[in-house]
């Protein structure tokens, strides 16, 4: 009796809602089903299968025998230090480009957030490098860095910024690495800019008005309002960008493919070279799997740096 009266006291619509929530689980899982099936077959299964491949001597199209940690041992000891070069380069490539992309992206976003003529056109134009197929724009850069007919060098020489014939961009180890980074920064900065711009547009205008009333300078407004308010965006952007840069394949593959003399070798490219043209899938899988713990460390680092201030 007591329960009945209490139920009666609750409005009908509220009871009805409680019942609906009880029934949400089956529908929830049903809606997730297509996603989980696709990710299960083409992501989770290959990932686990890759771990198994890395401890076998599998070749292209032929499953091999279990050989324990042989691939990892080979990769560390028997490759004339290419493994170390690849690891160091991967970190250097990610670190240096991220710093520049972050800084330039912020500048670009601040500029795009201003009232300027042709705003839509400028916005679309500055986004272009991020949108255009990487491989295609990297081919253009490769042509710009051509050893004999480099337009970059032509410009440098004609503006007297470099002596004739200008640097050999892709033929000298240090230059090649710098070229890789320059083009990555060129391509990646718009992603940071567009994300920061999106973040800036939801910052309430009253904050700036209040700051101006209190006599804050533009610089103070930037450091005390804009940057703190961008923290959540910054976190997501840094995470996505560092992961993608760390595992970057297509750009470096087109521009240098590890040359000259393995000096621009990255883990992703090296894994491909052993696995597909080299046919040693097991070894390739072992190399690419090294990325996973390193990637986890990098992600943990980003999360730690941007942790919510206590």
């Amino acid at each position, binding site marked *: 009796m007591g329960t009945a009266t209490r139920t009666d006291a609750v409005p009908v*619509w509220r009871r009805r*809602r409680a019942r*609906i929530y009880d029934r*949400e*689980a089956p529908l*929830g*899982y049903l*809606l*997730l089903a297509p*996603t989980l099936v*696709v990710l299960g*077959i*083409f*992501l989770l299964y290959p*990932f686990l*299968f890759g771990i198994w491949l890395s401890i076998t001597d599998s070749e292209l*199209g032929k499953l091999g025998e279990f050989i324990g940690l042989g691939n990892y041992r080979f990769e560390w000891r028997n490759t004339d230090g290419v493994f170390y070069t690849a690891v160091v380069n991967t970190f250097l490539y990610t670190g240096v480009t991220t710093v520049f992309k972050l800084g330039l992206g912020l*500048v*670009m976003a601040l*500029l795009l957030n201003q009232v*300027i003529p042709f705003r839509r056109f*400028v916005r679309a*134009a*500055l986004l*272009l*490098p991020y*949108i*255009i*197929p*990487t*491989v*295609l*724009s990297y081919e*253009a*850069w490769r*042509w*710009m860095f051509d050893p004999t*007919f480099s*337009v970059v060098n*032509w410009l440098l020489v004609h503006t007297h910024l470099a002596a004739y014939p200008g640097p050999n961009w892709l033929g000298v180890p240090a230059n090649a690495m710098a070229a890789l980074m320059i083009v990555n920064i060129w391509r990646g900065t718009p992603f940071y800019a567009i*994300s920061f711009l*999106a*973040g800036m*547009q939801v910052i309430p205008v009253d904050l700036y008005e209040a700051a101006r009333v209190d*006599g804050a300078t533009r610089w103070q407004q930037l450091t005390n309002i804009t940057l703190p308010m961008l923290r*959540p*965006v910054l976190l*997501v952007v840094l*995470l996505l960008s560092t*992961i993608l840069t760390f595992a970057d*394949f297509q750009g470096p593959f*087109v521009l240098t493919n590890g040359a000259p003399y393995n000096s621009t070798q990255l883990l992703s490219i090296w894994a*491909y070279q052993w696995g*597909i043209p080299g046919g040693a*899938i097991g070894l390739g899988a072992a190399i*690419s799997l090294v*990325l*996973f713990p390193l990637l*986890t460390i990098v*992600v943990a680092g980003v999360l730690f740096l941007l942790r919510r201030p206590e």
Partner: protein
Amino acid sequence: MAVPTLKFAKPGTGRVIGDRFVGRAIRIYIPLLVLLIVTLFPFYWMAVTSFKSASELFDFSVSPLWVREPTLDWYKHLFTQTNFPHWAFNTAVVATVSTIISLFCSVLAGYSLARLRYRGADTIGWGIFVTYLVPPTLLFLPLTFVIRELHLFNNLWALILTYPTFLIPFCTWMLMGFFKGIPRELEEAALVDGATRIQAMVRIAIPLALPGILAAALFAFTLSWNEFLYALIFMNDSLVKTIPVGVTQELIHGDEFFWGELMAAALLGSVPVAVLYSFFVDYFVAGMTAGAVKG
């Protein structure tokens, strides 16, 4: 009567440095111009190269920045002597179909994770985000075996089925942001009026999330149009290649680069996505807002 002294100046009075034209020029227009030039130069060079004749291509005695005698030879060559039309068709098919599949999956998943309450929803949501830690670079070698078992080598389905692995997580995460932004009350009102949950989703939540779905579609289409690694490995027959793979593999013979043709192909391969973006750049920004700010 004492007039209160203002510590700040009204815009346009010139007391704050940089509100006059010279200030704005130094602060905004000049940096913007530099950024624009650096950003756009490679595309300009692409276009200029593609219209140059073979002899002009390697003639740096006069300024190489202009075309003296424009020619369409490279474009003609591209369409008659190479399989470029096939590559363009393949790229369009793969990008369209994998975008549709990814959107179907991620609209449902995004709605489920953002709106329905059930055990495990948070964990699965995190799980989908964590798949970012497993980029294609980690998956392509084991995937060759999966594709071989499914007999999909040199078949566009190999790409259509594998692209969603990196499209779905991104789209789901973005759409979750959009679905969370729609007031719950709208759907609850429909439920009280006797609509089923599915009707509420299809008739109310999805139409309201349409800008987000459009932004997600734009992202998915571009990412699959640009994809290179899977296409490089799964497509070996010239007729089934996509533009990025065809261009890098068949327009370069050993050490010989056909720059005219290469740049013509690069320009043509870039135009569709560039046009798409010039129309939808605002949706793109909106999409980033929903995902990045609320996600």
